[in-house]
């Protein structure tokens, strides 16, 4: 067993264990923490696959931003835990049966007969000066520049939509009153006060 394989099985074990713990944990905040562990293991596996940029993006964007957003929402909402798992037992057997069938089918299709090392040999590792970011950026800014721009527009739309959805009630808003601004007169803004100043002799 090579060092690569040991790393792969350790990361896979934590990935699967953290995912199972996530879906069966009763507390939503604990589920988020387990999902963070799962994302870290996934990022480690992606580094084994020489996708360094995406692995670091997964940690920075998902663990750093999205999971913290989840934690914020969970802490903000104060969810009643007793009602959340009311129908736990009813759907677990069906879910397990469906998942077992899907997993068996996928293992049959994706097994070593079709995608093993004999069929698809592992590529040679890149040299130490190979830059994953350079390769990705070359493709992203030439062949995929229009999807890249569309992704930027999509993020802008998401920002606007999220702010508009949450920021709704009129009372919290600071808005302009246009009519008041237009009809303002100089005497409303400037008040001339006559002050008696002492003259030069100090009298």
């Amino acid at each position, binding site marked *: 067993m090579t060092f690569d394989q040991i790393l792969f099985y350790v990361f896979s074990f934590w990935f699967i264990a953290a995912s199972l713990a996530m879906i069966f944990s009763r507390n939503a905040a604990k589920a*988020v923490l387990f999902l963070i562990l799962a994302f870290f293991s996934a990022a480690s596996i992606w580094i084994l696959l020489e996708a360094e940029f*995406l692995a670091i993006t997964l940690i920075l964007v998902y663990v750093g931003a999205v999971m913290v957003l989840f934690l914020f929402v969970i802490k903000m909402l104060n969810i009643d835990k007793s009602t959340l798992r009311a129908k736990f037992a009813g759907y677990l057997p069906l*879910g397990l049966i469906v998942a077992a069938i899907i997993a068996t089918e996928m293992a049959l299709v994706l097994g070593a007969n079709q995608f093993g090392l004999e069929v698809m040999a592992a590529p040679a590792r890149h040299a130490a000066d190979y830059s994953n970011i350079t390769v990705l950026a070359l493709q992203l800014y030439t062949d995929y520049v229009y999807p890249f721009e569309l992704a930027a527009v999509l993020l802008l739309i998401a920002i606007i939509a999220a702010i508009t959805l949450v920021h709704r009630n009129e009372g919290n808003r600071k808005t302009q009153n246009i009519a008041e601004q237009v009809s303002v007169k100089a005497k409303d803004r400037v008040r001339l006060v006559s002050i008696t100043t002492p003259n030069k002799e100090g009298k």
Partner: protein
Amino acid sequence: MISLSDYLILSAIIFCIGLVGIFVNRTNIITLLMCVELILVAVNTNFIAFSHFLGNEAGQIFVFFILTVAAAEVAIGLAILTLLFRNKGSINVDVTNSLKG
């Protein structure tokens, strides 16, 4: 060496765990969103494994876009969730039944 089928079976297992999570947690919208994230990570692992073994970086570009769209989806989903909690006082799936025809 690790073969491609190892990576594919790993992501199939993670995909199925995410699926079971949707069945198990079907009353809690936050955990449903997290299960969708898990499924997306499984799919992304598939893309990256094929990209590595075929020597084609287009798979990694796809993962990049999937991550972008998933981040936007989570932001809007959590905004809707906050709005639902504000209006209904609960994030149970069963309270969102006012649209029945």
